[in-house]
């Protein structure tokens, strides 16, 4: 089966200096992969490269068998790659509804997006006229997630979904991620908090210093995590 996402010997970085040094990863349809690792491991850079924000300095990024190296992020977004970046991926000076309007560039109608978003996160419906910058952290993350959940992407990339949020909110968000996974969506989740994500992941990958250190079942990887975090 053609993998939805395939990274081959991928290298990327900033200003000519690689941050990730030749990683290989395959995600098949409907698979949820957790990408774990300490600060500076290159997790966010990996997502930025897959979503087109950074061009690879070597290797390939393939989506459904097509090499997409160097493709613009907006084209990849329209092609079905959805990245929810770390630190609340919302437009703070736009209202909730206007944030949802921005999702229509993927080709889905605003009526459909609004209906689904407000059904999934009723609180957003109550605050549709409020500017996103004035929402709570959890509500902002819900708004960011609603872009992923209402536009039917082929590949969802989630970066530090739990960052700075209360455990209850994190649990609610991961419940939604679990629902998406059950629908067959391929998901790559970057997290530092392993426990939050291992419950929904099919496979876990640990990155250290820009290289993949371990790949395995979540339970198995969970045992090795402490070692990776301590630099061993």
């Amino acid at each position, binding site marked *: 089966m053609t993998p939805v996402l395939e990274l081959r010997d991928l290298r990327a970085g900033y200003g000519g200096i690689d941050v990730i040094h030749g990683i290989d990863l395959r995600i098949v349809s409907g698979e949820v992969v957790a990408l774990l690792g300490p600060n500076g491991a290159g997790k966010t850079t990996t997502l930025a490269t897959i979503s087109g*924000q950074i061009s690879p300095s070597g290797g390939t990024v393939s989506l459904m068998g097509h090499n997409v190296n160097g493709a*613009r992020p*907006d084209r990849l*977004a*329209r092609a079905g790659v959805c990245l929810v970046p770390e630190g609340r991926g919302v*437009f703070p000076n736009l209202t909730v509804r206007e944030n949802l309007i*921005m999702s229509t560039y993927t080709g889905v109608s605003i009526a459909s997006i609004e209906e689904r978003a407000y059904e999934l996160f009723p609180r957003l419906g109550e605050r549709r006229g409020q500017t996103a910058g004035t929402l709570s952290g959890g509500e902002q993350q819900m708004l960011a997630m609603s872009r992923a959940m209402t536009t039917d992407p082929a590949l969802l990339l989630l970066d530090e979904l739990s960052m700075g949020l209360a455990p209850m909110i994190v649990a609610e968000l991961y419940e939604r991620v679990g629902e998406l996974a059950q629908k067959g969506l391929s998901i790559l989740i970057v997290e530092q908090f392993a426990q939050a994500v291992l419950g929904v992941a099919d496979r876990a990958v640990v990155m250290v210093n820009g290289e993949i250190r371990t790949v395995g079942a979540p339970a198995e990887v969970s045992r090795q995590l402490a070692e990776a975090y301590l630099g061993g």
Partner: protein
Amino acid sequence: MKLSPANYAAIALTVAGAIALSALNWSGRPVSVATVGSMLVVGVTLGSIYAVSASGLVVVYTTTGVFNFAQGAMGMYWAFVYWELRFNRNWPAPIAIGLVVLVMAPLGGVVLDRLVMRRLRGTPLVLQLMVTVGLMLGFMGLAATQWKGDRGRNAQPFFGRTGGFELLGVNVTWHRFTTICVAVLLAVLLRLLLHRSRIGVAMRAVVDSRSLTSLTGANPEIISGLAWALGSSLAAVAGILIAPESGLVVELLTLVVVDAFAAAAVGRLRSFPLTFLGAMVLGIGQQFIRSFLDFPGGFSNADRALPTILLFVVVLALPQAKLHIRGTAAAASTRIRRITPLSDAALGGLALIVVIVSWSGGLVPFVDEWTGTGVNRGVTMMITAIIMLSLVPLTGWAGQVNFAPLAFAGFGAVMFLKVAGDSGQAWGLVMAALLTAPVGALMALPAVRLQGLYLALASMAFARGFELLFFTQSSVIDSGAGERIASLHFAGWQLDGRGRGYLIFLTIVFAAGVVGLIALKRSRYGRRWMAIHDSEAAAATLGISLVETKVIVFGISAAIAGFGGALFGIQQATLNPSQFTLLLGLPIVLLLVVGGVAYPAAALFGGVNTILFIVIKERLGWSWLSALEILGPGLMAVAMVVNTRGAVTDMGRAFSPLLPWRHDARDQFRLEHATEREDEVGELGLGRPFTRDHVNDLDRQLGIVDLIPASRPTESRGGL
């Protein structure tokens, strides 16, 4: 918008002041349906003109995050293009309008976005302000070059000067009616566009986050281009509608939009209904003054000064947090600036004196002695450099934007005229500086709560207010009375304001000023300025009083400018109000920033360039260079998008390694040319030269060497 009790008090005070002023200056003209009707009809028309202009400003700010000081000049330029097609080449009006508003102006906007605005992303706000002010001068210079001379051009109103319909006893021409309709339509349509349509929402989204916009599937490059195209078209609409009312004159047309800044500020640069309201208050207010008030003598400009006063009040009275400032006042440079040792400053000053003395005395081999004209230009150069020097501690070190140095200089010149104009005694210069310092401290009051864009606007209002209300007073400058300023009497010498002795005196003053400022910068007190420049919040938490620091730096800056102004007065011998206008002051600010506002040497660079453009124009004698003194500084400022560091920085970096004692400069030079990576790595938040060797060394020192695979070859970039 929620206003605090202090805001309400400020508004109440303003309204009470306006009522009191009106009562005091009531002309006694009868208040009837006819007079009030006439005032309203003309006022609403005027308000509509402001509304159209201000809408363009708000649209560009909302959709690009850039406050476009050039909006008025762009409108002026497109109005000239329309005039050229419609009246000079007799094209039919619909075709000329369509071509200008729907084709040429949008294309111009896209080109502007491609060449200039894209490079401004992520740059400090000071740079953005200077580049757009540079564009303003650039467009003015371009129009003055293309269409030489302001006279003899008549932009006819649409549907002719006669005709129309009667309202409240006043004839409303079809052109004015069109202007009112366009203003109302724009207020409604732009609101709908930006808040209801997807492309409008996307334009605002790009300002919030370009990268996130691209992640939603929208192309931020295309959207930004569209936003500038729209802004340029709106400028064209405003220019074409205003030209028949204000006259097809470069400066007048540009200043109408500068006046509209007040309306845009009422709308906090984002609300179209409030902008419309502000524009109406402005238009009707101005017409009220013309219809019912009679200000004495020097205040006869009160109607023209109203936009300036309103801008100043609005910027001061609105809550800072609600002003919705994007970006930072002046982002701290990633490069750590070397603080010049006093010995270097003294040596540089001495070298300058030697050069000027030798050159003006004909001692430089193969170069002629300066003639009278040359010496006078040298005097202009040094005086401009001294006035520019006033901005180095203020803008360069303390990060406070100021577009009013010429207002301070003018004040100093007036003070010198008053205290020592007859005798020309040198102590008058010191008095002029001391008397100007409190005016600077007054300007510091808005600076205490304003930063960046709003401080820039406040300083512009300050400069324009001085131009229209202070220098016009006959008790301040009575140009008709033939008051003359005597030559300078200093230590037994009498120095003619255009002579070689005066030039050498100015050079010594400049050199001493530079050494004094460097000494001040190196002092404990001077470091406060850099502290508030880097972070006001951090400085405040360290116990630095922002109010005191800002008041003092503004005072010092004004004193230097006042001193320079007094020197200017001696050179000119007579004063007139047109010497100290806002527009004349802008090249002074721009050329300094082009040089590198944080370096005193940039003041000399600016002074040299001020006369260089005049000399080039004169030597070449090409007619298309007729407006070079405006066009030149404008284009140089726009060129800062390519080199944001400032010209003297680069010159210094190239020259200083040649000095035998500058080992540090040679080391720095080697380092940069070995790596050529510093800026790029700076994006990672690392402020040091960065190579793989450094990383490996650091890893070894931190004991994490085992994480680096032994098989991976270590890259060496050499030179370290």
